[in-house]
């Protein structure tokens, strides 16, 4: 224990050494404090009582305004908000009071509609959504079918699992899916509408040894028809080993990188495929070997635009490519999450201090915001109860008033 005491003391001494207190600290602080008036006890209690009274009146008046303005009342979580509007970016969360219902929230955190299924979805069912929420994919249902839903027009398309010999990702514009077909000797990339076969396929000349290996491990990190670009990533045993920048219109590989085993914990890309973040394996708690830093680079020329501590991992890049959502400690199940945001222009990190476990997150299309779904630490349920925290929105950052279920 004595050895540990010395080591801990030494570690704190190293932390503190760079920022000693100002010589004038005592004088300045005491002087500034002593200039502040002291209130008498009676006045303090009077002020407290008055504050509480005013607070109660304000809350009551606000509640009455909200009750009159819209239903349901704030104290009754969620409910039926009608048909979700078209043309508005939305994201869906489960209604804990009504099994099978999903509430559509806009990026100001306002409920804008409710999608209602007749019965509660099975535990195995997952509700995925296009980036703007205009289409949804219900997967994991009976027979392995994936059902695509347009929540406005209730258009439903079911995809036969036998057709799913491809890897898919929603396109940035939420209208199509990028597909990578691995049935053939050559892997082919294409674009498809939900539930349909891609109209054109183009061979992607991946390393033949990968194609022949039988170990697929390849997925999309970005799909952008607008930029004619897809980012493909290969991960083996949990560590990223390849990244490819691919031209969607002809399958041509524009650039590729290969990484030594255990150097990176993961690779993510911005929705439009213009930025790629490579997170050091140190972000997973690995000491060595690992990439010396976590970086964000441009996909067009490979130039590094941000370099951060290797113990930070990038989870996502914002829709406007201005900030990155990061974890400052390993994001692991059953452990409190430490989440931050990296401003790519200045390189500064804004760190969070929420006491919970990050369950999931969403990226606002074309904008700066993220929606963070926080659950109780250690909650292992398939659809945990979550609090939604919006950051980087036009409205003020903060938790939304209700608890929801992760869809």
């Amino acid at each position, binding site marked *: *224990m004595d050895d*540990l*005491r010395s*080591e*801990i*003391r*030494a*570690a*704190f*001494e*190293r*932390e*503190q050494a760079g*920022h000693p*207190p*100002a010589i004038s*600290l*005592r004088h*300045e*602080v*005491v*002087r*500034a*404090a*002593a200039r*502040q008036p*002291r*209130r008498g*006890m009676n006045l303090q209690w009077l002020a407290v009582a008055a504050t509480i009274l005013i607070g109660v009146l304000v809350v009551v008046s606000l509640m009455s305004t909200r009750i009159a303005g819209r239903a349901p009342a704030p104290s009754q979580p969620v409910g039926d908000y009608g048909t979700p509007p078209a043309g508005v970016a939305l994201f869906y969360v489960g209604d804990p009071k009504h099994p099978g219902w999903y509430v559509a929230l806009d990026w100001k955190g306002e409920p804008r509609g409710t999608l209602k299924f007749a019965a509660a979805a099975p535990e195995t069912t997952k509700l995925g959504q296009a980036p703007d929420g205009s289409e949804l994919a219900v997967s994991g249902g009976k027979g392995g079918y994936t059902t695509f839903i347009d929540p406005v027009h209730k258009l439903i398309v079911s995809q036969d699992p036998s057709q799913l010999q491809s890897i898919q990702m929603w396109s940035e514009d939420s209208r199509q899916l990028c597909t990578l077909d691995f049935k053939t000797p050559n892997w082919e990339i294409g674009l498809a509408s939900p539930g349909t076969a891609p109209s054109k396929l183009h061979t992607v000349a991946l390393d033949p040894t990968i194609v022949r290996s039988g170990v697929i491990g390849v997925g999309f990190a970005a799909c952008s028809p607008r930029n004619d670009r897809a980012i493909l990533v290969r991960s083996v045993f949990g560590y990223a080993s390849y990244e490819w920048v691919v031209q969607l219109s002809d399958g041509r590989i524009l650039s590729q990188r290969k990484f030594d085993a255990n150097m990176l914990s993961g690779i993510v890309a911005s929705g439009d495929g213009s930025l790629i973040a490579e997170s050091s394996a140190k972000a997973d708690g690995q*000491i*060595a*070997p*690992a990439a*010396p*830093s976590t970086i964000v680079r441009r996909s067009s020329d490979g130039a590094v635009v*941000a*370099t*951060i*501590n*290797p*113990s930070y991992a990038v989870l996502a890049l914002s829709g406007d490519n201005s900030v990155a959502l990061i974890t400052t*400690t390993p994001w692991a199940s059953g452990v*409190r999450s*430490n989440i*931050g*945001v*990296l401003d790519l222009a200045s*390189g*500064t*990190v*804004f*760190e*969070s*201090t*929420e006491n919970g476990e990050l369950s999931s997150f969403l990226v606002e299309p074309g904008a700066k915001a993220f929606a963070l779904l926080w659950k109780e630490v250690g909650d292992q349920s398939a659809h945990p109860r979550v609090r939604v925290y919006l*950051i980087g929105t036009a409205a003020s*950052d*903060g938790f939304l008033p209700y608890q929801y279920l992760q869809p």
Partner: protein
Amino acid sequence: MQQLVVTTPERASEADFDALIGPHLEAGYRTALAILRDPDEAHDAVQEAAVKAWRRIRQLHDPGSARAWFLAIVANQCRSMRRTRWWSVVRLPAVEPPAEDFVTEAPDLARALARLPREDRLALFLHFYLDLPLDEVGTVLGLSPAGAKTRVYRAARKLRPDLEMS
């Protein structure tokens, strides 16, 4: 040791306040720095805590416990700042040089220490760095001395899972 000059804290003058709280301001700043990891924020926190201490000085019944009493105010101020300014805690990116890739025990422990939950870090900081006895650690953390001992032990055990409690 400096003699305590204040017998009735509610009537403390600036000089009395300086004698009572002044010696603990550096510890307050260092505690705030350990929690917030930002020198400017730490300075703000200790200043706010001092103002609160000045206004609440009548609540300090035992001048001998001024250190733990003041550090508890500092810790609460830091928690409050982090809660209310979730998004404004700015940290410059610290890119480790490649040389640190070599595994040594001390940086490894420092990294593990940095990843501890903040209340655990605070317990270790108070006990092992500021050398506060467990009853004072308990006062700052709002725990009994036994609870403080358990907190310190558990936090240390997160750094060294094989640690035996003594």
